[in-house]
């Protein structure tokens, strides 16, 4: 990509060829829409005069996570349930990207219904980390991250409910941004935890990230919870809050790299504490189980998706283990006799956590910084088999989702070739400020860290 690219059609052809060539190794795409993308490229070439001026994303080649609806393309959420489901409409955020001249070349692989953090639980098989094929790329927006990291697309769109854009950004050495809940429309995003889901851009650098978010953001009449909110009250000399809790249980090498990256920003820092963040993981999972079990009710095999006769057989056959676990637990905790004990309690603690975070922002910290993931990408097949342990991988990222605040991950360095991410949190509505800080961090630390990363040699020799 870049300047030497030639015509839009040529760029698209090259991207599609690369996606197809690498997919055997990376498994980043569920659907590659070569014909559709080329037709779109030709259409854009016809409108070149107009679009060059108005299309901020003119000719940008993008990939979309397979839990976001794009009309006419399969939308499987990496589940057997929706194996053959073709979306009859396009998600608002994708519509907005297309309006500004972007070209979708395919739909990317992910954890089934985004319920996972490794990119390994999907019906279409595990996604591979392009820096080390034996390792996971992070999830659940795994394919989106990998498509960017492998240089197939300019940027990609994913979703983030507990860190699903930040985790793969950290594991793939990219910039990933999760906006304030409501800052970008969720119409067209398949549900996981509706009160935490957000559509997100992921790119190599902050410029594409900012351009993509600028297109995606804003009120949408088809999603009542979407807002036009732009807050810009961050001072000229912002202070970085460093919560002690963000380093608890974090791998020592990861901590070292992230602390060095924070120092490298050259900004004033302040030690802060968010005591309730230790409840983040249980509160998150209770909330997501409840919301997810409700959202999954619709997959009964009647209107779309696979059907195995009756509803019970259909659901038994259609869902993977993690999805079933979440649906069953969610159904259990929302029963009348349990609801006040689990769901209501989770909502209460979520409120307390949000107030603690607000207080930290009110008392002089403009941002919170720390590591994105507590460790480096793990090896495929060696994932933690205890689901409870597995859920702890989200410990540093869930807080932003529970509080609805903007957050992002920027490359901070690497441990023996495996990427480490620096995470940034900002107050609700301060999306531009968070992106601003990410841009600064990318300039001072991230771009160099990224440049040091080497793609797995086997990708270069791919047949």
């Amino acid at each position, binding site marked *: 990509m870049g300047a030497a690219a030639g015509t839009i059609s040529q760029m698209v052809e090259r991207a599609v060829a690369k996606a197809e060539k690498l997919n055997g190794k990376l498994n980043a795409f569920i659907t590659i829409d070569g014909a559709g993308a080329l037709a779109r490229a030709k259409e854009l070439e016809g409108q070149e005069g107009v679009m060059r001026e108005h299309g901020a994303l003119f000719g940008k080649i993008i990939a979309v996570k397979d839990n976001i609806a794009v009309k006419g393309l399969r939308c499987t959420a990496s589940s057997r349930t929706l194996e053959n489901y073709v*979306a009859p409409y396009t998600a608002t955020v994708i519509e907005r990207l297309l309006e500004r001249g972007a070209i979708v070349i395919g739909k990317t692989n992910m954890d089934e219904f985004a319920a996972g953090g490794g990119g390994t639980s999907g019906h279409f098989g595990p996604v591979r980390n392009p820096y080390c094929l034996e390792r996971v790329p992070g999830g659940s927006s795994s394919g989106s991250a990998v498509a960017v990291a492998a240089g197939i697309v300019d940027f990609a769109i994913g979703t983030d409910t507990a860190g699903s854009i930040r985790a793969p950004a950290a594991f793939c050495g990219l910039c990933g941004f999760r906006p304030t809940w409501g800052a970008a429309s969720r119409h067209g995003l398949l549900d996981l935890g509706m009160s935490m889901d957000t559509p997100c851009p992921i790119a190599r650098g902050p410029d594409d990230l900012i351009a993509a978010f600028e297109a995606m953001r804003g009120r949408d009449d*088809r*999603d009542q919870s979407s807002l036009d909110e732009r807050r810009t009250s961050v001072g000229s000399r912002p202070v970085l809050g460093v919560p002690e809790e963000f380093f608890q249980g974090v791998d020592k090498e990861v901590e070292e790299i992230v602390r060095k990256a924070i120092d490298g920003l050259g900004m004033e820092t302040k030690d802060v504490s968010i005591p309730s963040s230790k409840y983040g993981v249980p509160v998150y999972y209770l909330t997501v189980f409840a*919301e997810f079990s409700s959202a999954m009710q*619709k997959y009964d095999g009647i209107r779309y998706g696979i059907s195995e006769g009756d*509803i019970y057989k259909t659901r038994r056959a259609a869902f993977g283990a993690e999805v079933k676990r979440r649906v069953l637990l969610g159904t259990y905790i929302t029963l009348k006799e349990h609801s006040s004990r689990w769901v209501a309690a989770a909502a209460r603690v979520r409120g307390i956590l949000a107030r603690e975070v607000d207080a930290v922002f009110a008392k002089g910290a403009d941002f919170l910084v720390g590591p994105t993931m507590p460790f480096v990408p793990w090896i495929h097949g060696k994932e933690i088999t205890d689901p409870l342990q597995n859920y702890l991988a989200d410990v540093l990222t869930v807080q932003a989702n529970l509080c609805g605040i903007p957050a992002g991950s920027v490359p901070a360095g690497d441990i023996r070739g495996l990427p480490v991410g620096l995470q940034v949190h900002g107050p609700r509505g301060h999306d531009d400020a968070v992106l601003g800080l990410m841009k600064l961090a990318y300039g001072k630390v991230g771009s160099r860290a990224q440049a040091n990363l080497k793609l797995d040699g086997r990708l270069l020799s791919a047949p």
Partner: protein
Amino acid sequence: MKAGEGRMMIGLEIHAQLLTASKLFCFCPAGPTQSPNTSICPVCTAQPGAKPAGTNARAMEQAVRIALMVGCTVPEGGRVAFLRKHYFYPDLPNNYQRTSTPVGADGLFCGARIREVHLEEDPGRYDIRKDKVDLSRCGTPLAEIVTDPDFSTPEEVRLFLKKLSTVLDYLGATRMEAGSTRIDVNVSTDGGRKVEVKNVNSFHNVYRAIKYEVIRQKNMRRRGLEILQETCHFDELQKITISSRQKESADDYRYFPDPDIVPIELSPREVARICADLPESPDAKAQRLQGAFSISAKNARALSEHKDLAALFEAVRPRDGKRAEACAEFLLNDTLRVFNYLKKKGLLAVPEKLEYEAEFFSQAAEAVASGKMTGKLARRLVQARFEAGRTGPADVETRQVEGAEIERAVHEALKGQKGAAEDYCRGKKAAIHSIVGEVMKALGYRADPKKVITVLEKILNSKQR
């Protein structure tokens, strides 16, 4: 008599489709459709990823209006949130129904306590015999009015529903098509378990269902059988209730707040505005009409039960008591008959501005009262004015027919009614009516039937001699 014996407790849950242009959570048009699955979109068919587009503000307003008219108060703080009620059914594409917290509670209407009024989405239609689903209805806004079990006879329920339907008509807040209002009825007799009759599709059938259920429960007791807590449905054709399932435990719908819907805050100002715009209640209207126009209490009440007729009456503004009474009679007899007929055919079109109708009704009422016009002709004229699609009154001849023209018509009619004429002559006096009918029809009902009879008798009697 044993404790509780003979006591009946009946409670109602009335689901009325609200009159709005679009559905509750999407932009699809609401209301009946020509063919199945035409008024649908990704939202109301629950396509993966589709989000509710926000609560239809008009639906919310209509529900609040209903709540206020049945004496409810808007909850403190005015906060209305939506909950998800989970159950699996083919007509419910999300497999949960979105239902609001009360928009009004603690009302009192026609002797019954109103527990609450809330807003919810209608599911689609599932034809169990054909195993087919029509999702066009899905997402139509409904107001649910829940009463306490305060009724102790089917007659009380009937009166309540009659008054409620008048109020709903005044509000113009609900759909009037058949099947757009559905009622769940809870009946317990003699202190027994609660039986729920679901989905009764008209106010009239509620009365029948209760009557039947009371007899059924009585018979069961007489045979020494226990009344179980159960749910049944009312079979319209057989006019009986049929058990659907027995309840061993309370249903668990796993209610929880819908994360996709931002709760609505009804401000005191908003509520005050809605309150100020509410129509006069039927009772208040009856009293006012009686006082202002010196008509009988009976007619005043009857007029108040028909919003359109009361409006026409007020548009006429009869000058004195005698005229007023005549006008009321004309409206309540002839006009009402036409309105009911047209309503049944779905052809009633009452214009918004009634001033243009005042002159006609004033004259027609007087003409009918004084025998200058037949009721039948007057009804035809009313029909011509209010039938949807008709161009107006011009295509009905109104000139009154007299003297020679009547005679000619009588002679003409007699040619085809020889049998009837002979019968009459043989002393079967009632036979004359069929001939009068023929004559009236031929004259377009523009003659005074008394005059026709006089002429006819004269001719027939002269023949006899």
